[in-house]
């Protein structure tokens, strides 16, 4: 960029393209605004619908902004179904599954990144290839496994939250291990070696040297896990039948079905919308709080994958 031969033609190019550049900027902004409206409008419309009075929900043509904002729809919706219980259930699953994922994935990732042993690379490649497997293959036998475990031990596993978070404590999934391993590999080996010479055990090196340095990767993983677990639907759907044990995703679907069965009564769509807004608000809030980490993690997995 310092050679004069390159600078000269660039200057003339700049002159020629300056007006085209303005046109391009206008086009890009127009497209960005149009597209973001398309992406945002459904949210806006849902929030507005959740604040409508019963008569206004079904008016045609539909109003966008309701004539009166009924914030009372929210507490009323929450009282129409055990949303409190569903939130607590979801919170239990999210917290336990995320803690399990973070701890056990970083444990395994440390093993993969820092030790050399027979079958290491084969095991790692096998794990990555399981990411390609459709979920249905493991879903059915896992269900049977938890059913049989319950039968054999006398302690029921089905209709409890256990099948939803317990597997996370055993490795946390291929993607999680991959993410942390990539990160650990960027930490200089000298850190471990110095600690070994000082007589630290490998457990201490993991917990007191590597883990603190892995905070960015761990934060990314935690956020991805929270958002994913919050939205998880098919697993709770198959493991849980008892409405008192539902997480919010299945609860919302249950609420929707009940609501469809009550069409003759007073319109209740605004309550369904209010419940939807609440259920969607949490992962979005988590994203806003930790946006930086989130984007980093996704990108890390994409480029190096």
């Amino acid at each position: 960029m310092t050679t004069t031969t390159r600078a000269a033609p660039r200057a003339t190019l700049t002159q020629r393209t300056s007006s085209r550049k303005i046109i391009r900027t206008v086009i890009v902004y127009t497209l960005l605004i149009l597209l973001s409206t398309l992406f945002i409008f459904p949210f806006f419309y849902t929030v507005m619908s959740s604040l409508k009075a019963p008569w206004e929900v079904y008016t045609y043509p539909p109003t966008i902004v309701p004539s009166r904002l009924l914030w009372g729809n929210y507490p009323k919706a929450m009282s129409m179904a055990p949303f409190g219980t569903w939130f607590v259930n979801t919170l239990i699953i999210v917290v336990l599954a995320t803690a399990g994922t973070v701890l056990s994935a970083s444990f395994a990732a440390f093993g993969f990144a820092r030790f050399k042993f027979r079958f290491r690379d084969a095991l790692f490649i096998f794990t990555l290839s399981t990411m390609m497997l459709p979920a249905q293959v493991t879903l059915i036998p896992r269900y049977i496994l938890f059913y049989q475990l319950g039968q054999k031990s006398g302690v029921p596993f089905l209709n409890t939250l256990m099948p939803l978070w317990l597997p996370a404590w055993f490795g946390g999934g291929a993607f999680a291990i991959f993410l942390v391993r990539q990160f650990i590999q960027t930490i200089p080996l000298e850190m471990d070696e110095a600690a070994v010479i000082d007589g630290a055990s490998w457990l201490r090196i993991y917990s007191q040297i590597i883990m603190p340095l892995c905070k960015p990767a761990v934060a990314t993983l935690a956020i991805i896990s929270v958002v994913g677990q919050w939205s998880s639907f098919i697993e709770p759907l198959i493991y849980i039948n008892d409405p008192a044990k539902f997480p919010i995703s299945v609860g919302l679907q249950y609420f929707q079905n009940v609501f469809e069965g009550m069409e003759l009564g007073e319109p209740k769509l605004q309550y369904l919308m209010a419940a939807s807004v609440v259920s969607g608000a949490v992962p979005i809030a988590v994203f806003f709080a930790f946006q930086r980490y989130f984007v980093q993690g996704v990108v890390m997995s994409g480029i190096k994958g």
Partner: protein
Amino acid sequence: MDIGQSRAAPRPRRSLLALLVGAQSPYEARKAVWGYFFLAPWLLGLLVFVGGPIVASFILGFTEYDVLSPARWVGLKNYTQALTGDRLFWPALGKTFYYAVVVVPVGLAGSLLLAILLNQKLKVTNLFRTMFYLPHLTPAVTLSILWLWLMNPEIGPLNYVLRSLGFGKFPWLTDKNTVIPSLIVINLWAGMGGNNMLIFLAGLQGVPVEFFEAADLDGASSWQKFVHVTLPMISPSILFNLTLGIIGALQVFTTAFITTKGGPSYGSWFLALHIYQQAFAYFRMGYASALSWIFVAIVMVLTVLNVRLSDRWVFYGGSV
């Protein structure tokens, strides 16, 4: 940790342990054992929750099993039943492909377009990126309920707009011919600005500016630069998104389950719904397992094909 000792002594004969773990010295052998120690919880999980189930599912595919009574070996009956005697199987497969064939390429092109728009080095790009990403963060159940309402043929805002523009009433999710296009719209909205877009954006940001400058000197048009510089340089990201995109699209479940339950008149009865129905509504675990393995075979063939063909168009090298 007596490294000093092992270093000072002449290399000892490799112990049995060292041979087992593939190590050269006692120190390395001990270290390798620590490696297995750190992998142990994960290995146990792999065995119990992944490897074991995969094997179990394969065996179950040759049995009849309703969970309550013991499994009964039936040989290939489930497979012949699926391929010749199940009047929902082939339509379900066809619908799944129809969905995937549209949603994957259109989704990838859309994600790439969004990424390119975000990569124009303009102000407030982050704000737009966040707005594009929001649908991806919304739980599938939530967004399905939301779209069910937006697409309501009688009073939904979508049809209101269409009617104002002079079009007739569009049935959206309520007609068996328009239900899959409607689900495609929902899932494009949900996924276009998601992780695919972020991965493309990172890929675009990794293309060296010098390449474009060189193309400018040669008098290349914007379109030529896009085809001959940008696309080859981000082809690894395209392959990554394409591979995971195909696998994800073939598994389409939640949006259809919530909005239509596979209807109307089986119009959106995808393969994943068929498997779910067989396994968890009828408790035909053996048959459902056989169906999942047909599914795995399809996914595997497509993935291998995809990776094989990628040699022809994916460009590795450069600084990506």
